[in-house]
């Protein structure tokens, strides 16, 4: 058994109650229960958080780098899509 053949897990930690879980890194483990144990040893030994999520990395569907141009471009030629395009009435101080 080597780490190369073990599945990879993404680790998310919530540092305080009320905050969101944030991605902190990844590790190898046999299954999600073991990943949770290892996450505790790797990321949570100095009270860095109050809750851990582990997610099998293969369960994450990610956008592709090659799609950036067509998929994520904000389309700056269509300024009406941006809130800044619209003039606000004077009565609205902050938006």
């Amino acid at each position: 058994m080597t780490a190369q053949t073990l599945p990879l897990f993404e680790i998310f930690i919530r540092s305080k109650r009320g905050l969101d879980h944030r991605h902190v890194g990844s590790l190898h483990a046999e299954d999600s229960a073991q990943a949770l144990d290892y996450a505790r040893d790797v990321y949570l030994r100095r009270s860095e958080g109050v809750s851990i999520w582990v997610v099998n990395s293969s369960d994450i569907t990610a956008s592709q780098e090659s799609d950036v141009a067509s998929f994520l471009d904000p389309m700056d030629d269509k300024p009406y899509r941006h809130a800044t395009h619209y003039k606000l009435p004077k009565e609205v101080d902050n938006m």
Partner: protein
Amino acid sequence: MDSQSNTALINYCIALGDDSVTLGHRLSEWCSNGPFLEEDLALTNVALDFIGRARMFYAYAAELEGNDRSEDDIAYLRDCREYRNLLINELPNGDFAFTMARQLMVDVFDMGFFTGLAKSRDTMLAAIAAKSIKESRYHLRRSEDWIKRLGDGTEESHERTQAAFNELWAYFPEMFAMTGEERQLHNSGIAVDRGALEENWTSTMHAILKEATLSVPSHEWSIGGGRDGIHTEHLGFMLAEMQFLQRTYPGQQW
């Protein structure tokens, strides 16, 4: 407290510290040799828990002694025959299955032992025990999990784990043996009655082994002697490495 009871209490603390420091050192030998990175970190974290536990027992013993001997002197300047740890803790790591089998036997024992010690009339021992239970609960979660994975894993992992328990089984009765001083401390509400823990330990171990598809080893022979300073040939080599720095550079600190 009269001086005889004080000596008994000091010896009790040193023996418990020796149990922790020997196993802690053995576990630390896995550092950089673990089967994979994540397990390497987890094993050394457990090693640190045991070494920390040893420090608490030694520091208390040094305080009770009230002379110049420090916790470091107790750990680093005593020879093999002065060590009072149970033999199971000093055995070499063997393969990963052996390390985890030993760990499970110790962790199941520690859960019962420290639960008892947390009720000690000695408030310092009770405080050390309360901290140790939390650690042991996590250690047990790991060792139990690993034994089930290994026992119910591949043919090879099953065989290795079974072989480990077969060899280790001779060392468990020593965990439940009381020294004369221990009995005396137990009568005054300070020490734990080890004998009373055996039934629960046995049934817990049997249940875990069964779930791991392992068989309970036959109880053919057993060995003890650690509490009298009679050790296996392995402890001397371990102490030689552990104590080298303090022996070569006395009083060295960092």
